[in-house]
C-alpha cells in the first residue's frame, strides 16, 4: 500500500510539502487580491503560484513514491483540483454571504 521514501528524498519531500501549502496560500491570496482590487495583473501571478504548486506536488509525488500506486495518484490529482477550485468556490461564497451588506470595492466577476 505504501512504499516508504528513500533517505535521499527526505529533503525534497519536506521542502516540496512546505511549498505546496505556501504556494497554495499565495495563489489564494493573489487570487483574492486580484478580484478585490480589480487588478487583472495579479491574476497571472496567482496562476503562476498555482503552477509552482503543481510542480511542487509532482516532485513531492515522485519523491514519496505516490505515482507508483493508482490510489495515491488519485489523491495527488484530487489535491491539485481541490487547490485550484477552492479559492474560486470560496470567493463565490464570500460574494454571496456579503451580498446584503455594503461592500466598498465591487468585485470583478469575469475572467
Amino acid at each position: 500500500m505504501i512504499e516508504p521514501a528513500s533517505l535521499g528524498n527526505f529533503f525534497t519531500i519536506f521542502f516540496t510539502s512546505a511549498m505546496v501549502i505556501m504556494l497554495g496560500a499565495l495563489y489564494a491570496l493573489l487570487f483574492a487580491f486580484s478580484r478585490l482590487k480589480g487588478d487583472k495583473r495579479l491574476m497571472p501571478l496567482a496562476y503562476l503560484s498555482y503552477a509552482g504548486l503543481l510542480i511542487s506536488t509532482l516532485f513531492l509525488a515522485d519523491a514519496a513514491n505516490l505515482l507508483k500506486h493508482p490510489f495515491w495518484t488519485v489523491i495527488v490529482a484530487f489535491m491539485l483540483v481541490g487547490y485550484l477550485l477552492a479559492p474560486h468556490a470560496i470567493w463565490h461564497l464570500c460574494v454571496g454571504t456579503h451580498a446584503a451588506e455594503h461592500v466598498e470595492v465591487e468585485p470583478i466577476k469575469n475572467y
Partner: protein
Amino acid sequence: MATLGMLDSANLNGGQKLAVKYFTVAIVLFGAQILFGLLSGLQYLYPDFLYGVLDFSVNRMVHINALVVWLLYGFLGSVYWLLEEESQHEVVGLKLGNLIYWVLTAAVTVVVLVYLFVQIGPGKESSIWLINEGREYIEAPRWADIGIVVSVLVVFFNVAATFSKGRYTGIAGVLVLDMLALFGIYLAGMFYTTNISIDQYWWWWVIHLWVEATWEVMVACIMAYGLMKVLGVSRKIVETWLYIEVALMFGSGILGLGHHYFWIGTPEYWFSIGGFFSALEPIPLVAMVVHAVFDAGARHAKNNNHPAMAWLIAHAFGNFFGAGVWGFMHTLPQINLYTHGTQWSASHGHLAFFGAYATIIIAMFYLGIQRWRGGTWMSGDLPGNGWKWKWALGLLNLGMVGMTVAMLVSGYVQSQIERAIEGSTWMGYFAAQIHPWFVQGMWWREVFGVMFLVGFVLLVWDLLTIGKGESRKMIEVSNAA
C-alpha cells in the same frame, strides 16, 4: 454603571465574572507550562539535572498537562464570557457553575501536587484511580477524569439551559452541540483494554478529536464572537462562515484522525483514509485566506482593541503555518514513518498549539480586560505607544518560531539517523541524541524558550496594567450583533 479605567466587577455580567476566574487560572497554568517546559528542555542538555528530584518524565508530563488544562480553562472562560451577551439572558445555574469552577480548580491543584510528590511507585489498579492513569497527555487519575467529565457536563448545562431560555443564535447552536461532543469524546479515553492497539485507537479519539474537532469548533465560535466585537462584522456573515468553516473542518478533520493510526497496529486501510484526509486538511486554511482578504478589504480592518486584533491575526498565521505547513510536511505515511514521534512532531505540536489555540485565548484575555476596566480605550496612541503588548506579542511569537525551527533541526537529524539509517534501534536512538546538530537544536530551543518566558512575563504585566487610569472610552464599531 461602568467604571472607566479601573478593574471593577460591576463592569461585568455574571458569566463574565466567572470567565475572569477561569482566565486567571489559565494564565497561572500557562506560566507553569513554560516553567516545566524550560526545566525539561534543560534536562535534554543536562540529563542529570534534578534527576531523582524532579524527573524528566514528570516535568514533561506537567508541561503537557498544563497546556491541555490551561487551554481548556481558556475555552471554558471564553464560553462563559460570551454566554450572557449572546443569549441576552443571565446564565442559568451560575451558582452551580461557580461551584464546579472551585471544585475543578481544587482537583487540578491536587492532581499536580500528586504528580510532583508521587513520582514513582508500583503500577497497580489503585494507582490508575489515585495517582496517574499512565496515558500520555491525559495522565490525570481516573477520579480526576470523572471530575473533568462532570465539570464539562455542568458547563454544557449552563450553556444549553441559558440559550434555551434566552436568544438562540447560530453560534449558540454550534456551541451547544460542541460542548456535548467535548464531554462525550473524553469518555473514549476512560477505559482500558488489554490490547495496546485497541487501547491506542480509542485514546486517539480524545487527543485528535478534542484538538482537531471540538476545540477547533470552539475556536470558530470564539472567532465569530471576536470578529463581531473587535471588527464589527455583522452576525449574518460570521454565522454563515461559522457553518462553512465547521463543515470544512469536519470534512477533513474527523477522518484526518487516520494519520495517528499509521503505526499503532490498526488495519492497513488507515493509510488510505489518513493520507487522503490529511492531504485535504490544509484546504480549509487556504479557503480562509480568501475570506480573510475579502473581509479585510471590505471593512479596512477598523477595530477597537489593537492587542486583541493583533493576536487574532497571529492566530490566523500561527494556525496556517503550525497546523498547515508544519503538519503537511510530515503527514503522508511515506515520510511519517520516519518522523512520527521525533522532535519533528514536537516542532509541529508547539507551533500548531500556540498558533491555533493559545493566540486566540490571549485575544480573549485582552477583550476581557478591556471590558473589566469599563470598556476602556485600547486602540492606537496608548501610553508608551503600547510597547508592552507589542513586545509581548513579538517575543512570544519569535520565541515560539525559534523553538519550532530549533526542534525542526533536531527532528531532521532524528528522522535521518535514528529512523532511516539505524532503523529505529536503541543504538540509532542514542546515535541521534548525541549528534552535534541534534544537541545544537536542543540548545537553541532552550534559548528561544527563555525568550518566550520573557514575552510571557511582559504579557502578564501588560494585562495587569493596560487601560489602567485610562479616561477614553473604546471606539464603537458598528455591527448587527
